[in-house]
C-alpha cells in the first residue's frame, strides 16, 4: 500500500544499515521512545542489522504500560458498578491492577466494552441515556486530541451521562526525567513520530540542547527507523545535538495546530506518577475546571488512589532502559502474554510482549 511498502524495501534497508556502520566510529546508545517503534525494530530484526557497538534501548513509550496501578484500580472500581458501561481500548482490558484486571470484572458481570475511538464511547452514551458511560482515557499526545473532541462534542450536544477516567501522559517531561537520571546512558533519542505529528517538535529543542543529546523525529517503518538512527549517529559523530525531522511526510515543526488548540481547551498539565518512573511534574493531562463535570473520579466520588504494591514485575527497569525484557527472571516463565505479571507484557506495544513474540531465543 502507498506509504507503507516503499518503506520496507529490503535493498534500501541494507543500504541504510551499511551507511550507519560506515559512519560509526564509537559505541553509542540510542533510545526509541515509542512502543510502536520498539515493536517494529524487534519484528523486523533491525537491531540485529546494526553494529554491536550501537545499542538500541527501549523507552517508556507505551501509555498502557506506564499507567499506574492505582488508576487501574479506580478503573476496576468503576467498571464493577451496575449503573456503568465502562469503555476502554482493548489493550487496557488485561493490564493487572493490584487485585485483578478489567477482563475479570467483565467475567463477573461488569459491563466492560472495548472501543476503537472515544467517539464510539460517546455514541454509546447517546444510545444508552439511562446508563452512565465512562471512557478510560489513556494515551500520549497522539490520543489526547481524540479524547478532547469527545468531551467537546458531549458538552456541545448536552450528553450528560458521559464521563472520563483520565490517564493521559505527555512525553517530553518523561524524556527529561530519563536524561537527568544519574545513571543515564542514552546518547541520543528517536522521538515518537505520531506524538510529533500532533505536537510538532519545538518542545524537544531545549531538551536536546540542555542534555547535549540529538533527538530525531522518526516514523515506524523499517526505513523510517534506520534513517532516524543514521541521522542520530551522524549527529553524535559530528558532535552535534539538534532536533531533526526524518518523518517529514507526516510531521511539521509546529505540528497539528487545530488538534493542539482543542487539547489545550480541554486539558491542562498535571503531575502524574508513571509506572516505573514515579511522579513527574506536568507529565499528565487533567481536565480543566470548566470540564470538571466530565471527570468520572468526581462524578462517582472515587476514593483517592492508594499506593502501588511492589510485585515481582520489573517493568519499571524495562521502561527506563535499565533491563532488557529477557533479563527479567519471570520473562517467558512466570510471565507470558497469556498470564502477564506486568503491563509491558500485556500491551501489544510493550517491550516484554515484543520480545516474547519475536525474540524468545534471545535469552
Amino acid at each position, binding site marked *: 500500500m502507498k506509504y507503507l511498502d516503499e518503506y520496507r524495501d529490503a535493498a534500501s534497508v541494507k543500504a541504510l544499515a551499511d551507511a550507519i556502520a560506515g559512519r560509526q566510529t564509537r559505541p553509542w546508545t540510542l533510545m526509541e521512545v515509542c512502543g510502536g517503534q520498539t515493536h517494529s525494530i524487534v519484528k523486523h530484526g533491525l537491531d540485529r542489522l546494526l553494529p554491536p557497538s550501537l545499542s538500541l534501548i527501549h523507552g517508556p513509550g507505551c501509555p498502557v504500560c506506564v499507567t499506574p496501578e492505582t488508576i487501574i484500580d479506580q478503573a476496576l472500581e468503576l467498571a464493577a458498578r451496575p449503573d456503568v458501561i465502562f469503555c476502554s481500548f482493548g489493550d487496557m482490558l488485561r493490564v493487572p491492577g493490584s487485585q485483578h484486571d478489567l477482563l475479570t470484572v467483565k467475567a463477573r458481570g461488569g459491563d466492560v466494552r472495548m472501543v476503537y475511538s472515544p467517539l464510539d464511547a460517546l455514541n454509546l452514551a447517546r444510545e444508552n441515556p439511562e446508563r452512565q458511560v465512562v471512557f478510560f482515557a489513556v494515551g500520549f499526545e497522539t490520543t489526547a486530541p481524540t479524547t478532547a473532541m469527545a468531551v467537546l462534542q458531549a458538552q456541545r450536544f448536552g450528553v450528560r451521562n458521559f464521563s472520563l477516567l483520565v490517564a493521559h501522559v505527555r512525553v517530553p517531561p518523561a524524556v527529561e526525567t530519563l536524561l537527568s537520571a544519574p545513571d543515564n546512558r542514552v546518547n541520543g533519542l528517536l522521538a515518537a513520530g505520531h506524538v510529533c505529528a500532533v505536537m510538532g517538535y519545538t518542545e524537544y529543542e531545549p531538551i536536546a540542547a540542555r542534555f547535549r543529546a540529538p533527538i530525531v523525529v522518526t516514523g515506524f517503518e523499517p526505513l523510517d527507523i534506520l534513517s532516524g538512527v543514521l541521522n542520530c549517529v551522524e549527529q553524535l559523530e559530528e558532535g552535534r545535538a539538534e532536533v531533526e525531522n526524518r518523518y517529514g511526510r*507526516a510531521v511539521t515543526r509546529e505540528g497539528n495546530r487545530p488538534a493542539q488548540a482543542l487539547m489545550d481547551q480541554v486539558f491542562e498539565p498535571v503531575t502524574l506518577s508513571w509506572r516505573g518512573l514515579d511522579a513527574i511534574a506536568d507529565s499528565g493531562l487533567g481536565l480543566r475546571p470548566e470540564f470538571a463535570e466530565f471527570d468520572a473520579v468526581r462524578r462517582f466520588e472515587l476514593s483517592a488512589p492508594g499506593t502501588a504494591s511492589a510485585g515481582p514485575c520489573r517493568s519499571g527497569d524495562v521502561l527506563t532502559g535499565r533491563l532488557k525484557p529477557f533479563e527479567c527472571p519471570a520473562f517467558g516463565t512466570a510471565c507470558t502474554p497469556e498470564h502477564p505479571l506486568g503491563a509491558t507484557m500485556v500491551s501489544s506495544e510493550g517491550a516484554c510482549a515484543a520480545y516474547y513474540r519475536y525474540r524468545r531465543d534471545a535469552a
Partner: protein
Amino acid sequence: MCLAVPGQILSIEQADDPLLRSGRVDFGGVVKVVNLAYVPEAEVGDYAIVHAGFAISRLDEAEARAVLKEIAALEDIADEIS
C-alpha cells in the same frame, strides 16, 4: 493502541459544525468513517495518518519522495563500492 496508519480519503462530508467534519477513508481495501476535524486542509484523494478514529496528519507526498530519493542515493553509493 497508538498504532496509526495511513489511509486515502475517498469522500468528505462537510458538516455545519466543524467538529463533525468527517469522511470515508480507505485502508488498503477496508473503508472506515473517520473524523477529519483536525485536518481541515485535507482533500479527497489525499493520504492521512489515522489514529483512534481521527485523521491526525495529512501526508506530504513531496516530503515522502525526498526521503526515498535520499535512501536510493545511498544504495547507488553502496553499488559503486561493491
